[in-house]
């Protein structure tokens, strides 16, 4: 079963555990500057929003890459960067509409989320379940459940009023 990362900003507290888990998995150090997932703080609104690659089915980055360094992992559905092929041309960073593939100065290659091979460390590090990893066909399930509860209430209220 293919799974997807689901992000619920309402639950995010901006702690950056996800950024540390990501950088530790990929770089061996705790380094938010090298994280593939980023938490954005909207100070005036009091909101924290984690953001990362959503693994497009027809990925712009993959199609733009002139050296075929980005390939599909058939098990996880992730688009993965092959470091030995990547020439650091950055065309993918231009083509990605969401900005979630980025150049890494230290390696001269690009980096992006690869779902940690099917065990994304950001999701397991998140203390509030703002980041979860669920069935790719059911990413809306939690939201549907939330609304379903209210729909149910409305029905029972109407019934009791009648």
């Amino acid at each position: 079963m293919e799974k997807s990362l689901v992000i619920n900003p309402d639950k995010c507290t901006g702690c950056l555990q996800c950024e540390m888990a990501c950088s530790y998995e990929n770089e061996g150090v705790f380094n938010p500057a090298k994280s593939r997932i980023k938490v954005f703080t909207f100070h005036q609104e009091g909101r924290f929003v984690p953001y990362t690659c959503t693994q497009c089915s027809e990925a712009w980055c993959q199609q733009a890459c002139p050296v075929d360094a980005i390939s599909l992992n058939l098990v996880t559905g992730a688009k993965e960067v092959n470091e030995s092929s990547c020439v650091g041309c950055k065309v993918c960073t231009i083509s990605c509409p969401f900005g979630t593939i980025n150049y890494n100065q230290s390696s001269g290659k690009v980096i992006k989320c690869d779902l940690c091979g099917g065990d994304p460390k950001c999701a397991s590090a998140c203390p509030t379940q703002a980041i979860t990893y669920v069935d790719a066909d059911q990413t809306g399930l939690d939201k549907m459940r939330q609304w379903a509860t209210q729909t149910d209430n409305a029905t029972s209220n109407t019934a009791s009023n009648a």
Partner: protein
Amino acid sequence: MSWTGKLLRINLTRGEIISEAVNEEWKNDYLGSRGLATKYLFEEIDPACEPLSAENKMIMATGPLTGTMAATGGRYVVVTKGPLTNCVACSNSGGFIGAEMKSAGWDMIIFEGKSPKPVYLYIENDKAELLPADDIWGTSVWSTDEWLHNKHQDPLLRIAAVGRPAENACLYSGIVNDLHRAAGRSGVGAVMASKNLKAVAIRGTKGVGNLNDPAGFMKAVNDGKAVLAENPVTGQGLPAYGTQVLMNVINEIGALPTNNMKDVQFDGAHAISGEAMSEPRKSDGRPNLTTNAACFGCTIACGRISTIDQGHFSVKNKSKYWGNSGGLEYEAAWALGADNGVDDLDALTYVNFICNEEGFDPITFGATVAAAMEMFEDGNITLEQTGGIPFNFGSAEALTQAAELVASGEGFGQDLALGSKRLCEKYGRPELSMSVKGLEFPAYDPRGIQGIGLNYATSNRGACHVRGYTVASEVLGIPEKTDPLSAEGKPGLVKAFQDITASVDSSGLCLFTTFAWTLDNIAPQIQGACGSEWTVDYLLKVGERIWNMEREFNLKAGITSADDTLPPRLREEAAKTGPAKGLVSQVDAMMPEYYQLRGWSEEGIPTDETKQRLGLKG
């Protein structure tokens, strides 16, 4: 291991910046952060020096766990000689700049001397430079933050800065980082401004690693996170209500100091509580609290993000205060609220915003206003002296105007900037300053919680709760329940809390983890990061060593056992209501046993034997 092993030494007088290796021996004796920075300070300055002179130094320091994935591992400290207390000042802050400093490759930054002109320190990994701050001198922390982000075109720059009160030598000005986290107490901001240093801006992209035992570390970190999540205080109470979860609890047990500590219970407690912050406002149906927020790496997230009712008198036509910012924590809500008899949540939130915007300590400020209100009502301070403001208990208008005056340094604000000790001396009522060694009390009345009174009296930075938070045991039953009204056994409890806290503070973790964690949870994390020698027993010894070193500093600075006490009000005027009715603080009775347990002489001086046992020089 986990330390970077490097420090930056900034000589502001000469404009020189050098990189130095951190002293290995001291690192192993004092761990990091509070302990290590205090060791450097003690070795490098004369404890009797004038705090606001070029002779004093100011140290920003991280701990070995700062910048790691250990839950709450984002703390840093500012250590210096404090102008409010003339004692060692050690002010701890969260937010993100501590981790950024570490990620840039630095365990500590030592500032010495005084710059001839206003400057700020800009750090980008190995690159560090002093740049002109003329354009931001005379502006607030928030303006400085905005200016620096614009100038460097870097949204990820982390900034700590002082505001106008620090420049005006307000004795309780702090250093604010990440807009609303602060090294808030003891006047460390005034020291920074006295050196003509306006801000420190850091961008670190190296990351923190170099773990002693990576697998062991990650296991200890994950175990620790699970304990925090399952604990009712760190897993539920603090995320939901922040430290404000305490307002109603402390009021009920009769230990909520009210009206300059004349009373121990406040009728308006609920109106300014964490619960009230979550209730919809009448005017616009929104609650004061928008969301909770975490500091770097923190899985508790006790921080408050709040708004003020746009129709409230304090922010009418002031749109810059209409958005979200750092909301009330318990100490601020108490000091600004109960201690002044003010139950207006919006007014308190507004003053809290001002404290963050301009960088001054809401605890000392609130307690200073409370002392002013009592002297005003007693006729010692007149309308003419306050500039026409009626300083009555319960007046939200007086409170908000007082904050604006301290921010600008105008009129009566100059008197209020002195702190309560000097203000009360100036107006002839020294007994009305609710302080120890010049630092004002936080939000727990020593008549209703006996142990915390002894901690206040002996705390090395003056009346401070986070030097030995016996409230955890006496009120919350952590790690075990003791009777708050009894003095029995409290000297031992106070000593244990003080020593453990010194160790936790020196690791880079937040003290709030200890609602759920003991050293049994913390030691494996430090061991994973730093080495197997950091056992529970060794951490306790290091904590005790740090405590005694701070004491030695203070003794050399001129403190004596006569300073280890509480104001007469708390020792002589009994609590009027609640469970503690009829009780006074038994601090003086507890002191001999405390000195004895510490291995100090009857004069409160560590004996040679004690110093030898702890490896402190004679």
